């Protein structure tokens, strides 16, 4: 049963399994274990980013495609829900329509980009996606009559998901049963299910072909697989998943703007999460996203303390300034590309193997 859920791709490491169970339990019980708005925000962000990073790993880790357009699809999902809710009022039908429209746009765009990569060398792909993504970000902020420009759009969500909604009087284990709680569990369950779907995809024959393409595209082609078709399909699946992640985030934030969905810095965050967690393993996405989001939210507090403690020394406080947290993750990123190409998951699995 459990094996089936995990698509017969178990963690294969005691520590990894423990970490995953801890993360799963932590997220499942987050509203009760870590009360407070900030903690719940962090937990939601982890859920959404696990999905987003896992879908990116399908491209980078499993197929060996470097795309910088992943936030574009994330943004499409966010804007799809945002624009429908903003323009036509908060109803479940509009959420559904927004998600459907976003999926169509994302898949069509991914198809176009994928087919475009037919004509160009692999190394062009990274640069072209970077250019397209930045053009899309500018487009979203330019069409201000539609998207609200730099300010983005703030909108109301369906009744059931609003913070003011009370499901029942009183509380459960000291936690009020509000619409926020329902939204959180909607995001959590959707992310979990979609993550398992992704795990299923990479362990299917289709996923095996993708890995074959990553290892040696020429040989895969020679074996009779149309690499271009497989690559394009992988791009489309990843795009659809990213759009769904964006839609979930839009429901949670009740706001969608260029900075929260389309900016290049989010793309870099995703890249860091995949590589630090472990490329080519779906579980790496879970660990990478969790650690990164936690670091983003709590490492800064720690760094502020460290900066205060070293205030007397030259330069060090500046390097430890809370705004410089990305510096340390950048160093970690470079080191992990060199020394742990399979990230945390790879190291855990290797450490556990009987010698």
């Amino acid at each position, binding site marked *: 049963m459990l094996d089936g859920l995990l698509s017969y791709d178990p963690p294969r490491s005691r520590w990894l399994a423990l970490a995953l169970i801890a993360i799963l339990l932590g997220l499942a019980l987050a509203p009760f274990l870590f009360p407070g708005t900030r903690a719940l925000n962090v937990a939601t962000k982890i859920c959404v980013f696990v999905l987003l990073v896992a879908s990116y790993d399908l491209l980078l880790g499993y197929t060996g495609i470097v795309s910088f357009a992943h936030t574009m699809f994330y943004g499409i999902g966010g804007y799809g829900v945002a624009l429908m809710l903003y323009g036509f009022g908060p109803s479940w039908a509009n959420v559904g329509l927004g998600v459907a429209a976003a999926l169509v746009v994302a898949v069509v765009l991914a198809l176009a980009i994928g087919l475009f990569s037919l004509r160009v060398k692999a*190394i062009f792909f990274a640069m072209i996606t970077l250019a397209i993504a930045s053009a899309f970000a500018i487009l979203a902020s330019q069409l201000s009559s539609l998207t609200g420009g730099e300010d983005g759009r703030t909108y109301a969500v369906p009744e059931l998901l609003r913070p003011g909604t009370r499901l029942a009087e009183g509380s459960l284990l000291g936690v009020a049963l509000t619409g926020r709680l329902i939204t959180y569990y909607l995001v959590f369950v959707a992310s979990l299910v979609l993550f398992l779907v992704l795990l299923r995809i990479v362990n299917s024959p289709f996923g095996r072909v993708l890995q074959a393409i990553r290892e040696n595209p020429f040989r895969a082609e020679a074996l009779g697989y149309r690499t271009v078709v497989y690559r394009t399909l992988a791009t489309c699946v990843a795009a659809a998943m990213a759009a769904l992640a964006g839609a979930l985030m839009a429901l949670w934030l009740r706001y969608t703007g260029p900075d929260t969905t389309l900016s290049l810095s989010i793309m870099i965050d995703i890249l860091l999460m995949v590589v630090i967690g472990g490329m080519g393993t779906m579980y790496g996405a879970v660990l990478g996203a969790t650690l990164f989001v936690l670091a983003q939210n709590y490492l800064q507090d720690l760094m502020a303390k460290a900066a205060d403690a070293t205030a007397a020394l030259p330069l060090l406080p500046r390097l430890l300034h809370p705004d410089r947290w990305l*510096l340390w993750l*950048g160093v970690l990123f470079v080191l992990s590309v*060199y020394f742990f190409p399979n990230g945390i998951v790879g190291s855990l699995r290797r450490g556990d193997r009987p010698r």
Partner: protein
Amino acid sequence: MTTLSPSPAKRVDLLPPLLPVALMLAALPLIGSPSAWVTLTAAGLAMGMMIFIMASGLTLIFGLMDVLNFGHGAFISIGAYVATLVLLPLAGWTQADSLALNLAALAPAILVAMAVTGALGLVFERVIVMPVYGQHLKQILVTMGGLIVAEQLLAALWGPNQIPLPLPAALRGSVALGDAAIEKYRLVAVIVGLVVFVAMLAVLGRTKLGLLIRAGVENGEMVEALGYRIRRLFVGVFMAGSALAGLGGVMWALYRESVTAGMGLEVMVLIFIVVIVGGLGSVGGCFLGSLLVALLANYTGFLAPKLALGSNIFLMVAILLWRPQGLYPVGKG
């Protein structure tokens, strides 16, 4: 097959050089007023030259070493920051109303910026790039990581705020050409860009060093087999490319009259488009690509500002549909 410098003996592919000219002529009737056209064209040429200076190093490094350096943008920012170290203390000289004093401040600023970026290029090549030669995926990731670290270090050393960098007094203002006004600094940018382009073509086409580099682009193993240490060539070209990025960074910063840690990354998107349009590894293609991108951006910015943001993507798609490897495809792939 080489396109770095078409030697007289070979058939010269004339179609790409005609593109910017055709674009300029096509824009004239659309814009209508000749004076506006002259101003826009000058602005486009100046911007194109600056982009060329920044992009040429990237394309050369790719052509010779097959390394796509996403960290190239870091050298642009570093060049600009280092220049402020010289220019801001010498503010008395740069703001004096004397060309000689202005240049006396500007020249060391540019030299120091190029020296520092060149030296850092050596470090970057040794520390970041060397372990991942031949692995494209890792190269992209690692150089991207290098860019993040460099950008954050700049912000840590100089603070997160943008630094204003005023133009030297003698380069401010504009020259009147008939009805049209052309900013002096744009003329300077065009001249510097042309000097860099001609110098590169001369080195690549007329010297033994250039011969070795071109040979290395075509077939590195053969150059090694003939007894030349291609590693040294690699390092030299990487340093030169980084120094060019530093020079471009100084010029770009003076054009914007401000310096930020993120400026390198911002301009990287344009540089990538230029390099793709020109054909990875081709200096001539890079030059033409820069001009095309900058001219088109300026014209559409004037004619249809809403379309300006898409013009570069449109140009890239159109060129790649015509020549999938860029204007001047280079042998190695």
